[in-house]
């Protein structure tokens, strides 16, 4: 370490903050005051990132390269940063500045103020904020999710229906609905009990989720009824989607009941037609599918 003026040294040693000065070219420590020395303990190298921060290379937070790459007037400009030091588990506010040292070298001096207490409070505040955001997110999620099947609930489906109907009117794109009712669901409940009935509902939801397109919206409409909203889809394509879902359900081997099928009603929104009316038509088509032997797709024209 270079010798520096004793007056200067005495002055810096009475300041109650850690102070160190490093050569910006070599990162060698030019000067370190007593407070800083006590903080970092026995140095294990002569460069700041070794002796002070116990790193294997210059620190991520180091502003030297950034300052040097700027215009020359960036010299003498203070940089203030907050830093957590894992050497002593403390938070520091660092004020750093590049200046010319009497021998002509460019050096960076740093004043480190311990702000751990302040940071502790700020952290508690951030944690509270994060907890609030998480709680809020969880609330938003539960508000739109069906508790049993984890797909959207009726409230969310109603909202998507409203939004998609508006979009369809604005852009004149086709919008279709697929209504699905699990066949003979009542007898599943009666024969095997509600637990098995619930697992049939969950498995059905999973199969539907896997086989819809990513632009479709799936939700539980009520009881054993599911609704799939298909934007930008005409009747012919909606029928193809419904047929794919029907056959996926037909192929699936369920726990306990093994085989379970569904009946599907498909309807396309007419111009100016409201959701209620389209849903009624989808329901009528679904009823026809049931009448004609179940495990079928019927379309409302």
């Amino acid at each position, binding site marked *: 370490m270079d010798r520096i003026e004793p007056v200067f040294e005495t002055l810096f040693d009475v300041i109650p903050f850690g102070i160190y000065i490093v050569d910006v070219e070599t990162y060698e420590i030019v000067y370190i005051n007593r407070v800083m020395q006590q903080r970092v303990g026995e140095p294990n190298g002569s460069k700041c990132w070794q002796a002070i921060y116990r790193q*294997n290379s210059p620190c*991520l937070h180091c502003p030297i390269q950034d300052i040097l790459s700027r215009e020359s007037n960036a010299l003498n400009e203070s940089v203030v940063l907050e830093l*957590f030091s*894992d*050497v002593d588990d403390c938070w520091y506010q660092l004020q750093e500045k590049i200046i010319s040292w009497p021998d002509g070298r460019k050096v960076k001096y740093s004043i480190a103020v311990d702000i*751990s207490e302040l*940071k502790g409070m700020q952290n508690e505040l951030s*944690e509270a904020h994060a907890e609030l*955001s998480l709680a809020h997110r969880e609330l938003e999620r539960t508000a739109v999710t069906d508790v049993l099947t984890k797909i959207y609930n009726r409230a969310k489906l109603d909202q998507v229906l409203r939004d998609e109907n508006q979009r369809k009117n604005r852009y004149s794109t086709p919008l279709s609905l697929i209504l699905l009712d699990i066949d003979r669901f009542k007898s599943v409940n009666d024969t095997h009990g509600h637990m098995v009935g619930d697992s049939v509902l969950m498995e059905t939801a999973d199969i539907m989720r896997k086989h819809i397109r990513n632009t479709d919206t799936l939700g539980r409409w009520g009881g054993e009824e599911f609704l799939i909203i298909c934007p930008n889809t005409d009747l012919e394509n909606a029928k193809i989607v419904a047929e794919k879902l029907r056959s996926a359900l037909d192929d699936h081997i369920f726990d306990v009941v093994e085989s379970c099928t569904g009946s599907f009603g498909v309807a396309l929104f007419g111009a100016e037609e409201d959701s209620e009316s389209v849903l009624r038509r989808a329901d009528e088509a679904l009823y026809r599918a049931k009448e004609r032997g179940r495990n079928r797709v019927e379309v409302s024209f």
Partner: protein
Amino acid sequence: MKALKIMVVDDSIITVEKISAMLENMGHTVVSTAKTGSEALTKYPEVKPDLMTMDITMPELDGIETTKQIISIDPSALIVMVTSQGQERMVMDSLDAGAKGYVLKPIKPDKLQLILEQIVDKYT
């Protein structure tokens, strides 16, 4: 709580040592450590830890990006973010990336213990 096999990811050796010591004190085993995000990505499939602690700020591949990539390989991966940046933005970003929880530096052993218990309760 059952003992976990844990992988510690942090570019600071000191932090790796501190977290490892805390975890071992709680009875867990640190089966692997990584100093960079890419090292973590390489080691993860071999090590298959029960849980990972992940530093948010690392050079090149940061903790949030590393978390995203690990979750894309293994959606059930349990990752706890370790951050000195007490900003909820970073925390929320990492949770969006698929992390299951976070601890703020300086890490308090009881906080770390609590978050591990919560995650194990909720996800296993």
